[in-house]
Structure formats: structure tokens, C-alpha cells
């Protein structure tokens, strides 16, 4: 019974999907099974994973956030502009990161006001704030591409934890970010599973009225969620700027779907109340693995978006079929009990 339950879990399915996909690609091109490729997938996953953790928290709470990429690039770009304007220490890495997190949390605060304060449906509220943030950034903070970002951030993009030359002569690099990202991932997991706040996020996704009856403040929990997500997005935004070695205010907009896709593929229920950090990590890795390596399979890069779409439709279809079966089973069980 336990094994059956384990097999039915989304994470298990995803692990199998990852294994099958790697075997298929690996058999077609040996380049796939190299350390360099693994590290590349990891490097392209960092920023997305940070965004995805934020989205996971929102989705567990029964909401949806589409403003996070805008919050991220707003925070990252503004932090760089502020560094310039106030001539802060260019060497420092901590200053821009702190700035970006604070800006992100403030923007998240605006989402919190709209959602917790006024009870606007989350999708509509965040669509609106995304428009406001983007419009304000491009008309007042700047609409031009900054290619010479502060030295500290620039140097950070090449800060490697492991660096060696492989037999084939290519440079294999593992970025130092792998440690902080892993720490944050574990911290979010602990936050969700081991704290009162985390449990109230799950409760909120399960149902608003029951949560209220439990004595949990809905508004306060929602406010915390959106500010936390804002802060996480701000961090992701500045790291994106650092890794890209340029601050382009037009970037990231439109990337929300890929992140939501990863979280949903990871098994989080869009109705709220269910989702795991492990599943999200797998979802992000799977999507990045696919995007990075479809070319090896002979799929041209212009079909990548369609591939993500197919994957997403398949993922939600499988989930929906599972849900329908479950509710049917529960119904027949309830009927039997009656008899």
C-alpha cells in the first residue's frame, strides 16, 4: 500500500520522467552525460528556482502571483541604478543584494495591501500591480540597458566553486551560488513544514473559512506571504542581473509562465493546500533540462516554447485525471458506507 502511494506521488512520476528523458537524450548524444552539462543545467536553474519557491508559497496558499518577474527585475534594475546614483561601494556584493531584497519586499507589500487589505482576487491584483510596477519602472526609473554593472556584481558572475578543465578541453564550472540557493531551498522547506506560519499557509490553501475558525489571521498570513515572495523575487532579480552581467529592464517579463509551469509540474495544486519544495526543485530542474537539451534531440530552438506548453498541458491533464479518480473513489466509498 505504501509503495503504491509512493508511486502515485507526483515527485516519483517526475523523477521517472527525468530519468527517461535523460536516457533518451543520452543515447542520442553522449554530450548530455557530462559534468559540464550538469553544471550548466544547475546554473540556469538558480534564478528560476528562487522565483519558483516564492510562487510555490503563493500557490500553496490558494493564490496565484503573476507579478513576480516584474518585481524581480524592478528590484534588480533599481538596485543597480541606486548604486550608481548614490555612489555606493562598487566592490560590495552585500549592498545591492540587500537593496534588491528590500525593494522586492516593499513591492510585495503593495501586492499584500491589494490582496489582504482589499480582498481583490489574487490573479487580477497581481496582473494590475505588474502593470503598475513595469510602467513606473520604465517611465521613471529608467528604460535603458545598463551594461557596466557594479564591479562586485560583475565579479560575482564568475565566482566559481569548482573549476577545472575537462578531458575534452572545455571549461567545467560550478557557480558558488549553488550553496546559498540550496540553503534557501532548505530554509523554505523548513519554513513551510516546521513553523506555525508555514502550516497556516497550507491551512489557508485548504480553505479560508476553516482557517479563520482555527484562529489564524487570514490578512496577516496573506500579507506575510506576499512580502516574503516579494523579497525572494527581489533576490532572484539581482542575482539574475549579476549572472547576466547586465541590467536590462525589459528582461524577465513574460517568464512567469515557465516558473508557474515548473511549480505546477512539481505537483503543487493550483487550488491551494498542496505542494512540496522537493517537487518544485524537480519541476525546475526538469524544465531547464528540457530547454537546455532539446537542441541535442534535434528540436530547433523555436519549438522550445511549444515543448514547454505540451509538457504543461500533459502535466495538468495527468493531475486532473488523478484528481477526478480520487474524488470518484471517495464518492463510491461514501456510497458504500451508506449502504
Amino acid at each position: 500500500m505504501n509503495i503504491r502511494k509512493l508511486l502515485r506521488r507526483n515527485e516519483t512520476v517526475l523523477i521517472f520522467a527525468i530519468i527517461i528523458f535523460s536516457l533518451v537524450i543520452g543515447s542520442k548524444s553522449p554530450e548530455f552525460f557530462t559534468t559540464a552539462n550538469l553544471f550548466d543545467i544547475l546554473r540556469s536553474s538558480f534564478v528560476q528556482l528562487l522565483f519558483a519557491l516564492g510562487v510555490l508559497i503563493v500557490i500553496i496558499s490558494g493564490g496565484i502571483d503573476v507579478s513576480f518577474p516584474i518585481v524581480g527585475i524592478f528590484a534588480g534594475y533599481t538596485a543597480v541604478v541606486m548604486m550608481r546614483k548614490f555612489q555606493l561601494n562598487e566592490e560590495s556584493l552585500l549592498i545591492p543584494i540587500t537593496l534588491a531584497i528590500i525593494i522586492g519586499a516593499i513591492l510585495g507589500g503593495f501586492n499584500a495591501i491589494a490582496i489582504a487589505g482589499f480582498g481583490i482576487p489574487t490573479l487580477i491584483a497581481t496582473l494590475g500591480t505588474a502593470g503598475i510596477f513595469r510602467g513606473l519602472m520604465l517611465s521613471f526609473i529608467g528604460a535603458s540597458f545598463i551594461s557596466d554593472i557594479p564591479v562586485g556584481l560583475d565579479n560575482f558572475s564568475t565566482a566559481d566553486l569548482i573549476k577545472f578543465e575537462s578531458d575534452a578541453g572545455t571549461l567545467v564550472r560550478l557557480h558558488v551560488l549553488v550553496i546559498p540557493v540550496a540553503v534557501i531551498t532548505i530554509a523554505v522547506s523548513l519554513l513551510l513544514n516546521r513553523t506555525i506560519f508555514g502550516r497556516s499557509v497550507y491551512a489557508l490553501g485548504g480553505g479560508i473559512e476553516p482557517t479563520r475558525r482555527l484562529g489564524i489571521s487570514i490578512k496577516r498570513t496573506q500579507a506575510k506571504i506576499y512580502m516574503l515572495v516579494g523579497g525572494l523575487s527581489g533576490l532572484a532579480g539581482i542575482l539574475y542581473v549579476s549572472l547576466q552581467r547586465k541590467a536590462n529592464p525589459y528582461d524577465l517579463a513574460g517568464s512567469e509562465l515557465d516558473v508557474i509551469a515548473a511549480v505546477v509540474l512539481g505537483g503543487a495544486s493550483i487550488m491551494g493546500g498542496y505542494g512540496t519544495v522537493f517537487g518544485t526543485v524537480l519541476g525546475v530542474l526538469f524544465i531547464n533540462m528540457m530547454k537546455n537539451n532539446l537542441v541535442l534531440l534535434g528540436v530547433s530552438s523555436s519549438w522550445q516554447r511549444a515543448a514547454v506548453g505540451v509538457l504543461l498541458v500533459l502535466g495538468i491533464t495527468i493531475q486532473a485525471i488523478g484528481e477526478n479518480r480520487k474524488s470518484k473513489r471517495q464518492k463510491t466509498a461514501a456510497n458504500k458506507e451508506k449502504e
Partner: protein
Amino acid sequence: MNERLQRMSTSGLLADRKVTQLMGFTTFIFLIFTIFSFNIFFTPENFRSMAYQVPEIAILSIAVMLSMLTGGIDLSIVGISNAAALVAAYIMTEQMSATGEISSLWIIIACLSGILIGLICGVINSILIAILNVTPILATLATMTLFNGIAIGITNGISVSDLPKQFIRVGNGTFFGIPTPFVLMVAIAAFVGFLINRTGLGLKLLLIGTNRKAAQYSVMGDRKVIAWTYILSGFLSSLAGLIIAARTSAASPDFGNSYILLAIVIVVLGGINPLGGFGTVTGVVLATVVLQMVSSGFNALRFSQFFYLAAQGGVLVAVMILNTVLENRRVNKSINKSLES
């Protein structure tokens, strides 16, 4: 019974009140821009260009409105409209390059294929939402990526341009002095208005939006109604796509990404309840006109297009806040009233 009648009549009044409010708002915006930039805003050229720009976004908004009336949402509208426009444009240009000339018959065939694509996309949405019970947000988010991805894949991300003259004439011509797209929009709006207010399907749509559970228990075939909603939404989106292609003489996979936000802003501003159950086509069309005036007015005053984006978001959030505040006040008032009696 009498009480119920009374409640129904007040809700009817409320319906009219929203449209009346919006009409007042429209006049207000109109006056403001007329005062501030009379020379540019208050010219026949400006009104003509607005009449060409309003229809496409109005039709897309009507498509979103239909799904919102049932309590869902359709985010794939722009994906569908671009896919439909691309297919039609592709058939036309292929035919043109083969023979150099193109007959009206082929243009009609191309348009019909575009509409067919819209219907197919709508059916895919319907299968996901009505049969598999996927949440509309998630389903249409996924299909939006899918349709857009397929469009990019087929075209390699390049737009198809140089469409035949007869086709462009539809998008840029006039019909008894009125721009043709505008005439088409009025016809479509009238059709959807008739559908919502005068047919069984429309009534069921509103009932499902008001209370899905109650609709299920009254065995009206709620899944079938929802399926029709998304198919209709796909159909309207494909029409909007064809009009856009005819006006701009091009079809591109990434045209009008900002239209999703705009369409939702318009629908909410037009007085549709995002949780379903209430809304009018008149409201949506009026809201489109308001936002187009704001856009043209900002242009005339030389504000940047990004400022307009911020204004769209601001309007959306402000209208939603205003709605909740007014709603709370109304509920409190009625509670107090019942406490008093």
C-alpha cells in the same frame, strides 16, 4: 414572492447603474482630454484612428467577458488570435506567391481556416476545463503557452506580412462612412448581447457564474454550457486576430502580448464581476472606448506608452478596490437595516 421581485428589480437597477456610472466616467475623460489637448485630441483624424483601434481589443474583451461570466477566465485569447491570424496569413501569402494574384474565394477560405483554428483552440480549452475539470486559469495559462509556442515554432518567430490588398481593405476601409472594423465590432457585440440576454445558453451561463453548485443540482448541463463558453471565446478571439491582421497587414506570433492585461482591465472596468454571474456587453464596449480615449489622450499629451501601462494597472486595482469598498458598505447597510427592523 413580492420581496424577491423587489430584489430582482433592484439588481436590475444596479445593472443599469454600473453602465450609467461608466457613461458618466466616459464623458468625464472625454471632457478632460478635450480641454487639455483640444488641437490634437478633438480632431476627426483622432476619432477615426480610435474607431480603427477599438474593435480588436473590444472583441478580445468580449471573449474574456464570456469566460468571466461563468466565473472562469480565458488567458489564451491573444495566443488564439495570433494563431488564427498566422494561419490565414500563411494561406494567403502561399496562394499569392504561387500565382501572384489571389481571388476573393481564397481569401474567404483563408479566413475560414483562421476561424477554424480559433474553434479548435477553443475546443482544446473546453476539453481541459469542462471535461477534465482543470481550473480555467491553469488550463488557459497552459494552452496560451502551447498556442503561442506552436505559432513561434511554425513561423520561426518571424511575422508574415504583405497580405493581399482585398483583405487589407476590410481592415482599413469604411462601410457607409464608418470604419469597417467598427461595424464588425457592433455586429459582434449585438450578437453576444443577444446571446446573453435572450437565449437559454446565456441565462445558463449567468446562473453557472452565480452559483456553480446550484446549477449542477438543477441539471442544466453545466459542463456543456462551459464548453460552449470557451469555444465561443476561441471563435471571437480568432475574429479579433483576423481584424488585427487586416488592419496591420501582418500577422506575428508575439503581437499584442499586453492585450491580456488590457482585456482584463476593460472587462473589470466594464462592471463584470470576476467571480462570475454578472455583466453587460454595453459595459465592456464603453470601457474599451474609455481606455482607448485615455491611450489616445496620453499620446496627444506626449506621455510615454509605459505610463499608459502603469495607468492600466492602476485603473484595474483602483476599480477593484472601489468595488469591494462599495460592496462592503452595501452589505453593512442591509445588515443594519435588517437589525433595525
